[in-house]
């Protein structure tokens, strides 16, 4: 078991949902595949996909929905089965 973090590729606003009425893209306990869309970042009036860096299980979401984030900030914790 190893822990990996999905980090923010850019500064902006963190969104867990593609639309306010939609469920979050991922919840703690979800299994994700590398490349899956797990969150969005809004910057410069556009939304950019944040994708899973590895195959694994979401064990923590470290940032609140609509929080301001910095480039490089850890957003989502993944646990990887080695």
């Amino acid at each position, binding site marked *: 078991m190893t822990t990996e973090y999905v980090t923010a*590729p*850019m*500064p*902006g*606003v963190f969104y867990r949902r593609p639309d306010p009425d939609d469920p979050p893209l991922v919840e703690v306990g979800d299994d994700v595949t590398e490349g899956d869309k797990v969150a969005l970042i*809004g*910057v*410069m*009036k*556009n939304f*950019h996909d944040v994708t899973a860096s590895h195959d694994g299980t979401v064990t923590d979401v470290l940032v609140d929905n609509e929080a*301001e984030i*910095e*480039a*490089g900030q850890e957003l989502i914790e993944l646990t990887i089965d080695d």
Partner: protein
Amino acid sequence: MIRVLDGGISTTVQDLGRFGQYHIGMPPSGAMDLFSHRVANALVGNSPEAATLEMTYGGADLRFEEDAVVALAGADMPARIDGDDVPMHEAVRVERGQELETEFTTTGARTYLAVVGGIDVPEVMGSKSTYTLVGIGGHEGRTLADGDELAIGENGVDREAVIGNRAPESRLRDFEAIDDVRVVVGLCDYRLTDESRERLCEVDWKVTPEADRVGYRLEGPELDFVEREQPFGAGTDPSNVVDVGYPIGSIQLPQQPIVLMRDAVTGGGYATVATVISTDRDLLAQIRTHETVRFDAVTVDEALEAREAAQADLDAIRDALE
């Protein structure tokens, strides 16, 4: 020819800008950080007019279908050519078939990629710059996307001769160290109360996520306007005036400040209370979302001196490369 494998977050073709079209509402566009655009061109022996790629926050991935020499200038952006690290502010060789991969900027917001011969796109109204709001100039008037093909121009520069060109560090900008940008107060600063006029240049303004090529929307304390009777022809908001032209860099206050940048509307009905001087617009363009900045009031003469100092740095860089 350069093939775009990934356009990055927001990559556009830019040059020095499109001039003389203000009367039809056409802003200049052009590189947001002209200093870095000029440095990138100098490194590869291009004239300052050559078009570069302006890459914002996250750069593009490109495959070169011909031999080329490129240089990166501006915000620090990790980059590799076929796995080998590419230094900032240095002219490097790219061979036909090689891929240039870039990552996210580590300091600053915008990185310029110059190539010997320049990026060759058709000129629109005398400029290769992209103005995305109306979709003109650059490559199809838009940000670059996977699959785009960009032609490289011919300018007679000897590629072998410029490889290894490095800009002297002492003449470059440290984007980590930018705390303030200089402004000339006016033209409509009389609309602010005396207290608010002073506060404008005394407080930290935070760059919001809505800061782009059109404008930098800032967040900070409320500023107050002098009570007045709404003049004929002005809107109802206290910050409205009868229409004025908007200089690039002018700061309007529809409640919270917006610094108009190179793709901004050219006139309208908001009071502009100060204007960021041209040299420091280059710096403002490198301040990232959520960072703070202060305004430092200077005279027009001081603004002209700042421009001369920046020109001296550019001249020194060009001289060092000859």
